[in-house]
């Protein structure tokens, strides 16, 4: 039986769909958006993609902070008093319908002049008239149509940074010079003398000289700078022999043409720089829709409502919250500071912090920690710390967040370049001294020829092309790594540590088990009917799992906030709620349960447990062969027994770990000489992710939020972590092989150089030949090594199969973008 899905958002409509205009909707929110679109001539939205929408969120008061002048100023890109421009990040952008409707915003609000979507970045840039509309109206409008903008403190601090495009300029200049120089070199490749050549060769040579100037002094400058920095810090990096090669090529060529000794090596020079830059460019794979640098600031709200002594509300930026402030946190809002709950019914979802699936209930007077999301109604709380000093956020005062992982690691290329440089210099000196003795006129010629031919172009290209290609392959399978160095670090992993909640378990679903006396048919109906009327998150998830088909009208229904619900039908009374409310004995501490009491008899309880990802066991079994494993959990030991039985032997487990305990544990392992991979998900893992050699974050939805890390992996790829490591190891072997291959080219070239017979044409053939063959070799081998990567998931990924959404017309491929 195929279930019907909502015309707007594609979610299953359930048993009671809303009919409107001969279509089914899952909720009034979706219906309202549909109405809005059809009334405003925007129904084309539904023609482009089927069910493209999202359920609009409840938003009363949510964007009030956008009336604050200081915040508006930060968010605006341009403001001339009448016209304003702003860019908003909208995570829901996912298909062509999204682009279409967001670029037709002016039909919904006359104050909007134009809007333009940047799909890869998931942003929309809106130009609007200040007099007719405001930033707040815009945000409210977007939320109403299901495109909730994501506005955070972090993002707009960096919003005005200009993009660095110098790489593309340099590549353009190098390519331009390379092409022209090659063209001008051709006559002399095929003919060494003749009237025509003799007449024009000086002109041709000087023209090549002119073309090489920008290549050496503009494009090649980064190599000189890097080489200089390397030498000054006593380190021979790969840029040293490259810079030496470029410099020698240029000086020798200029010398040759000035004294009319030959045509010079301008072709090799420009080609070398062009290919090297191409390698660098290929290595840069950026996922513009992801951020690997986020800390709590990008997750926390910009502003919060503070209640003044006289009862009035005001919006203040979160970093101005002081101890003792009374704050109002509305439904679906984040708690920005540690505080004491003063008033209201708190159900706090800590899934972003801990990965815990079930919301936690708090009573007034309880302490609530920053980072949770309030789920039911508004609450008031008194701040007991400032934002920076809260339990969670003080983690970021640790030094590790200011250190750059890249500098702690020596890449394979760096490792080889030292020996290589010394070897090249030694060969140059020995052969020069030999020729000084044999035929001094040739000595200088040989010295420069050795430096030219030994320029490690192919070596410098091996790693960028191998790793760059792997990075793309990973990206296509939803494993987004920050840069190519992460792959090299992954290859060295010998210890893998996992967070439990949210990483090994999923926070999409939780298991509900009933323990107690079996319920009668009528009792089950009554239970379901009572749950239906309750808005409590636990009631809602329980309602989904009770099998009863129909519901009955309730005679009495009462909800006791923080305790439970009581209802009755004819002479059957039911009490549902906390252990104390329904009179049962609770299960072990720390577990979430709902207790049932019918007519003064305690019946039993429903136990909510986190569901483990299906392939956890398989992953652990295969990983155990290549690394020692461990689990670091912030939870209590409740599931230790189960995990010990379920997972292979030898997995070390630590429970009750605070965020900084996790960090310190990783540090201890590293001090023992281990190379540690940390896999986590929430903000509480941020410290461990930063400390580890490779920190990988598991995300159910990569667009939503991940703490700062080296890689973000889609949850569906969880079991492929082992393949990721295995493939990284293969990648490193491929680099080593291509190093050997390029050494063969270098040795061949050196033969010509040392014997003093290096002609420009030989250099011009060897250089591109070695580069291109390395590129081909690495690309082919990495593709071959990765041919099976991620395949199994295609077959077993049930969520993919069960998706209600039909194949989508025109759906952009997010990976391409």
């Amino acid at each position: 039986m195929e279930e019907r899905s909502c015309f707007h958002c594609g979610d299953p409509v359930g048993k009671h769909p809303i009919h409107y205009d001969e279509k089914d909707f899952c909720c009034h929110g979706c219906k309202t958006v549909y109405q809005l679109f059809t009334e405003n001539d925007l129904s084309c939205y539904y023609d482009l993609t089927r069910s493209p929408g999202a359920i609009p969120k409840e938003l009363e008061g949510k964007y009030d902070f956008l009336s604050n002048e200081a915040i508006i100023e930060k968010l605006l890109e341009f403001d001339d008093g009448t016209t304003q421009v702003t860019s908003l990040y909208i995570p829901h952008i996912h298909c062509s319908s999204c682009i279409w409707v967001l670029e037709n915003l002016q039909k919904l609000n006359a104050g909007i002049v134009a809007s333009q979507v940047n799909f890869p970045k998931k942003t929309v840039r809106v130009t609007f008239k200040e007099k007719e509309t405001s930033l707040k109206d815009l945000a409210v409008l977007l939320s109403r149509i299901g495109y909730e903008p994501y506005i955070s403190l972090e993002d707009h601090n960096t919003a005005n940074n200009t993009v660095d495009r110098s790489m593309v300029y340099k590549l353009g200049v190098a390519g331009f010079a390379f092409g022209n120089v090659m063209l001008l070199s051709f006559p002399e490749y095929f003919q060494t003398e003749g009237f025509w050549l003799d007449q024009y060769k000086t002109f041709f040579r000087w023209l090549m000289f002119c073309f090489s100037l920008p290549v050496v002094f503009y494009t090649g400058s980064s190599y000189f700078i890097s080489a200089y920095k390397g030498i000054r810090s006593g380190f021979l990096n790969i840029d040293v022999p490259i810079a030496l090669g470029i410099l020698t090529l240029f000086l020798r060529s200029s010398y040759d043409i000035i004294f009319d000794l030959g045509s010079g090596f301008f072709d090799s020079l420009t080609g070398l720089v062009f290919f090297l830059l191409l390698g660098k460019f290929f290595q840069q794979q950026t996922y513009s829709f992801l951020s690997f640098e986020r800390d709590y600031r990008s997750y926390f709200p910009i502003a919060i409502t503070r209640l003044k002594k006289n009862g009035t509300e005001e919006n203040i930026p979160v970093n101005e919250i002081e101890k003792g402030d009374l704050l109002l946190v509305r439904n679906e809002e984040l708690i920005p500071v540690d505080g004491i709950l003063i008033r209201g019914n708190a159900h706090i979802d800590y899934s972003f912090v801990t990965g815990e699936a079930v919301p936690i209930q708090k009573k007034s007077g309880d302490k609530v920690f920053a980072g949770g999301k309030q789920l039911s109604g508004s609450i008031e709380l008194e701040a007991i710390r400032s934002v920076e000093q809260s339990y969670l956020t003080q983690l970021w005062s640790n030094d590790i967040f200011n250190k750059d992982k890249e500098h702690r690691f020596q890449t394979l290329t760096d490792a080889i370049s030292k020996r290589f440089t010394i070897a090249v210099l030694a060969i140059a000196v020995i052969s020069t001294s030999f020729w000084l003795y044999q035929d001094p006129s040739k000595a200088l010629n040989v010295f420069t020829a050795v430096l030219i031919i030994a320029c490690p172009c192919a070596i410098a290209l091996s790693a960028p092309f191998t790793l760059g290609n792997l990075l793309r392959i990973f990206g296509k399978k939803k494993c987004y790594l920050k840069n190519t160095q992460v792959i090299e670090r992954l290859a060295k992993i010998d210890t893998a540590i996992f967070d439990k909640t949210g990483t090994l378990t999923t926070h999409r679903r939780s298991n509900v088990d009933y323990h107690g006396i079996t319920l009668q048919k009528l009792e089950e109906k009554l239970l379901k009917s009572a749950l239906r009327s309750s808005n409590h998150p636990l009631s809602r998830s329980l309602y989904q799992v009770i099998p009863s088909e129909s519901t009955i009208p309730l005679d009495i229904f009462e909800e006791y906030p923080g305790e439970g619900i009581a209802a009755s039908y004819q002479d059957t009374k039911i009490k549902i709620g906390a252990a104390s409310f329904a009179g049962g004995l609770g299960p072990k501490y720390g577990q979430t349960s709902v207790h049932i009491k019918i007519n003064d008899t305690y019946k039993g309880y429903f136990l909510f447990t986190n569901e483990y990802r299906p392939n956890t066991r398989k992953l652990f079994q295969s990983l155990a062969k290549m690394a020692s494993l461990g689990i670091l959990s912030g939870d209590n030991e409740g599931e230790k027994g189960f995990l010990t039985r379920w997972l292979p032997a030898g997995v070390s487990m630590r429970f009750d770990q605070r965020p900084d305990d996790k960090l310190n544990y990783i540090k201890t392992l590293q001090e023992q000489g281990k190379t540690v991979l940390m896999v986590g998900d929430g903000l509480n893992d941020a410290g461990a992710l930063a400390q580890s050699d490779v920190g990988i974050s598991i995300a159910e939805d990569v667009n939503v939020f991940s703490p700062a890390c080296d890689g973000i992996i889609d949850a569906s790829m969880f079991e492929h972590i082992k393949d990721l490591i295995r493939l990284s190891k293969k990648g490193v072997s491929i680099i080593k092989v291509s190093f050997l291959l390029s050494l063969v080219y270098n040795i061949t070239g050196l033969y010509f150089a040392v014997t003093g017979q290096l002609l420009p044409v030989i250099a011009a053939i060897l250089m591109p030949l070695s580069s291109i063959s390395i590129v081909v070799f690495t690309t082919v081998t990495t593709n071959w090594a990765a041919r099976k990567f991620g395949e199994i998931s295609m077959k077993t990924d049930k969520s993919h199969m069960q998706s209600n959404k039909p194949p989508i017309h025109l759906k952009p491929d997010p990976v391409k973008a």
Partner: protein
Amino acid sequence: MSVIYILLSISVVVATFFLIVFIVSVKKGQYDDTYTPSVRMLFEDELKEEQENQNNQ
């Protein structure tokens, strides 16, 4: 003067012109988003179709 000088200078000028055009277009951000325009291009047609349909009605 030999024609080769004229031809070469013209070709260099043309090549430089294209290099400058390329750099300017990169600078203006034309290559920042290479995906959205490809989708946007398709909308035009569908919008026109829609208008035509309305006209026909």
